[in-house]
């Protein structure tokens, strides 16, 4: 085995990494790269890489084809391109937050330079915005005119039809009056009137139907939104949003700028100091002194201020990951010891079985509500609670804005993720090979050594298999929990988009679907790597 050349070492190292991380599809690529049986590798590549890629592309094409053709009243199904645009838009929003944040922190010359550039940009974009607005108005008028033209004959036809029908109805009413008169005069049979009226109501119905038909036509034309109008609206909106963003930037560069605010506070402190020296009455002195202290405090407080970032999609991603991590760690911390206990002790297993069986199928939504009540009770005043003060003071985690909503979302995740890990751990512990236990018996290992040297190592692959399922469940549950609890994260992103109900919402929801899926995929891969690194049977048991 040791007679490998360095190149072979690299090759096999690479192959092993690929294998362990579960990306076996790339195996032939690496082999091909090292020139091993090119024909076979090319075959494998075309079978296991190209074919799936083509299939996915076909799916995308199908999606692209079907999306605009499937109209719902709540909007069109977005095409792949629209979803991509949603990603770009969301990234732009994030970028804008970055810009504003840096603007907020800029000072001195840099700030002035930026003001100059942004001002120029605003002027330029504003001009453009005006142009687009005018264009939009023109198109709007045009569309309205066209629609009016299209509607005009229909409206006329409808009015005419209505008038005709009215006339007909009136004449029929007159006729029926005549018949009733005749009946009263015993000149006609009442049956005739009944006959006539039956006929009349049928005709009225038919007339109404014909009216309705026309009305529907009119409605359809009204519902049609010209594509160019929509495009113009979009274009105008985009630039208008940009202008607004640039103006907000100017705000953050001038009055809203941190250095400016500090300067202002300091200035008022100096002013207060001045009035302190010029004050003569004791009351005035006290007041002036107080105001000096207050101004100083304000200045120091402002200098520590951070830019209040709006939550963008990447922030939501990080927060979701953090929440699921907390929940997962909680779940593992409960599941592994309890699982070991259950695996070792039949009584413990018997005691916990009813609890597991009853609570396992409970929906995450129910847990969320329960934890919301329970967790809430622990944090009567979240802003000053030491746990949150501590967590929000940490460098990376602090930026994620830890609050009780995060805690109970994480608890919900833990509650739902605990079961697979627990059951698998119990199974792993109780199904340690008899031979291994015999070894322990022969060696007369104590409980603790038996646990740490035999049972736990032996059950680790199953424990990790359980943890992997747990993490998958947790990630799925988290999205639902966040949506419901309005704890920042991808779930909230989805829910907010749903609530927004704007024309971009659907695309954003689909975007979230992909983001959630891809992250879920990588989490799973990560767990596979962990699982393989602890399994001693070369990972044969894992998929």
């Amino acid at each position, binding site marked *: 085995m040791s007679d490998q050349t360095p190149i072979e070492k690299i090759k096999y190292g690479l192959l092993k990494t690929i294998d362990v991380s579960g990306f076996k599809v790339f195996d032939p690529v690496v082999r091909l790269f090292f020139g091993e049986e090119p024909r076979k590798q090319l075959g494998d590549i075309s079978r296991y890489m190209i074919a799936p890629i083509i299939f996915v592309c076909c799916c995308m094409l199908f999606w692209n084809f079907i999306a605009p053709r499937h109209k719902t*009243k709540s*909007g069109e199904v977005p095409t792949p391109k629209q979803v991509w645009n949603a990603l770009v838009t969301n990234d732009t929003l994030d970028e804008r937050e970055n810009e504003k944040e840096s603007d907020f922190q800029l000072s001195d010359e840099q700030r002035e330079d930026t003001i100059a550039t942004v001002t120029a940009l605003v002027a330029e974009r504003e001009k453009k915005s005006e142009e687009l607005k005018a264009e939009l108005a023109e198109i709007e008028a045009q569309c309205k005119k066209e629609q009016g033209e299209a509607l005009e004959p229909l409206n006329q036809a409808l009015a005419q039809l209505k008038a005709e029908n009215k006339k007909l109805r009136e004449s029929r009413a007159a006729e029926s009056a005549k018949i009733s008169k005749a009946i009263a005069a015993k000149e006609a049979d009442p049956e005739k009137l009944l006959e006539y009226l039956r006929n009349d109501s049928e005709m009225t119905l038919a007339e109404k139907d014909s009216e309705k038909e026309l009305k529907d036509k009119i409605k359809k034309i009204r519902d049609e939104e010209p594509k160019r109008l929509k495009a113009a609206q979009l274009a105008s909106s985009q630039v208008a949003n940009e202008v607004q963003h640039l103006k907000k930037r100017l705000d953050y560069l001038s*009055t809203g700028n941190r250095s400016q605010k500090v300067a202002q506070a300091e200035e008022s402190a100096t002013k207060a100091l001045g009035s302190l020296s010029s004050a003569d009455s004791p009351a005035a002195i006290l007041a002036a002194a107080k105001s000096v202290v207050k101004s100083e405090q304000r200045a120091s407080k402002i200098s520590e201020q951070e830019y209040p970032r709006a939550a963008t999609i990447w922030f939501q991603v990080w927060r979701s990951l953090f929440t699921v991590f907390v929940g997962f760690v909680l779940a593992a911390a409960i599941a592994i010891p309890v699982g070991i206990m259950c695996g070792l002790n039949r009584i413990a297993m018997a005691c916990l079985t009813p609890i597991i069986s009853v609570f396992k199928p409970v929906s995450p939504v129910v847990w969320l509500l329960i934890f919301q009540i329970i967790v809430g009770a622990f*944090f*009567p005043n979240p802003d000053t609670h030491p746990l949150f003060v501590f967590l929000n003071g940490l460098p990376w985690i602090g930026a994620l804005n830890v609050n*009780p909503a995060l805690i109970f979302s994480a608890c919900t995740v833990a509650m739902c993720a605990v079961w697979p890990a627990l059951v698998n751990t119990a199974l792993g512990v109780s199904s340690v090979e008899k031979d291994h236990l015999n070894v322990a018996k022969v060696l007369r290992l104590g409980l603790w050594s038996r646990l740490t040297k035999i049972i736990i190592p032996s059950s680790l692959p199953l424990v990790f298999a359980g943890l992997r399922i747990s993490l998958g469940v947790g990630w799925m549950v988290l999205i639902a929990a966040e949506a419901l609890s309005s704890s920042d994260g991808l779930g909230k992103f989805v829910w907010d988009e749903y*609530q927004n*109900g*704007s024309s971009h*919402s659907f695309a954003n929801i689909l975007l979230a679907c992909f983001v959630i899926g891809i992250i879920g995929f990588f989490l799973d891969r990560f767990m596979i790597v962990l699982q393989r690194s602890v399994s001693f049977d070369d990972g044969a048991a894992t998929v």
Partner: protein
Amino acid sequence: MAQDELDLEKDSLKFGFIKLTDCAPIVIAKEKGFFETEGLQVEVIAQPNWKQLLDNVINGELDGAHMLSGQPIAATIGFGTKAHIVTAYTLDLNGNGITVSNDVWEQMVENEPALDTETPQHPISAASLKPVVQEKLDAGEKLQMGMVFPVSTHNYEIRYWLATSGIHPGMYTSEDIKGFTDAEVELSVTPPPQMPSALESGTISGYCVGEPWNQQAVAKSIGVPVTTNYDIWKNNPEKVFGVTKAWADENPNTHVAVVKALIRAGKWLDATDESGKLINREEACRILAKPNYVGADYEVIKNSMTGFFYFQKSDKREMPDFNVFFKYQCSYPWYSDGVWFLTQMRRWGQIPEAKPKEWYDETAKKVYLPDVYKDAASRLLKDGWIAKSDVPWDTDGYRPPTKDFIDGIEYDGKKPIEYLNSHTIGNKD
């Protein structure tokens, strides 16, 4: 500088809101920097529903929130979650509409030929709906309609509208907390954003909700707004800015600072040029259309916010007072508004037992804090941000009696019992 006067107890705040256009004063106060000017760092967070919003205010997660006018009152008297909530600022007037499904609309037109034009005469009463309701009842069913929350203005408005035409919307009793007792139309709680889809799927046949969800129904052609709450009661109070009593007691100066910023935001929203055109609304719509605020399409928000309202695609009407944020001294916390909500709670059985006249006054005074408002307003007046006429300085907190209701019944906040007894349907004391 204004902030030199106020010794802020707390300068970093979190406010909650629901994705409705009438959260505008809070959003504008943040985005236009009015909070900043007061030295406040404010985070504005969307909430999934009214219940959670209230819970988050009570548990301290939020410092304050955009609330239904009925919410502070109901919480204070203990209908639903009990907590002493107070308000010193009314966010807006009007802004709601009642939308029915296309199907129901057609039947209403059938019943009332006068509606069969592109621009029917307003206000449309529920009279033409009555046969539809009756038909359903004869078939052994009840017409289902949606409203947003048991103590929401929407609930009281749609009940008022139905009851005026003799349709019984159901009573709340101590056992029936859904308010279905004796109902001819069942009103169930549906979160605003779900209204259009619930209407489209046929779960409900109509709803009463704030914007942009009525305009959304028009834009998507899934329903027809038949009336706005402006027609039901001209210039009725809609949302308030609520905080807990404990918070208000702990942070009196911060509270004043917040109200100052809100007043300026309201004033900004209602600013007009000489011709009476609202000048800042388009910018406000742009801001509200951001995904982290209301997030609906700019065009949809613009419809109602800029003084127009689409009843059908072909029926765009001017409604300059559809959203009022500052005019008519509306942001002042009127006791009479509180009393009106109390009378409605009593009328529909949410308050199960008869209360004396004084109780209405006392309860309103527990919830509405005009002193905070006046303090804030006087500071703004001193700095020249508002005019003297913007604020009712010498009022006793009760608006003059008004008959601006769809049924013309007079409401005098000082005579709650008489007002209750003047209605046909509902509890009488």
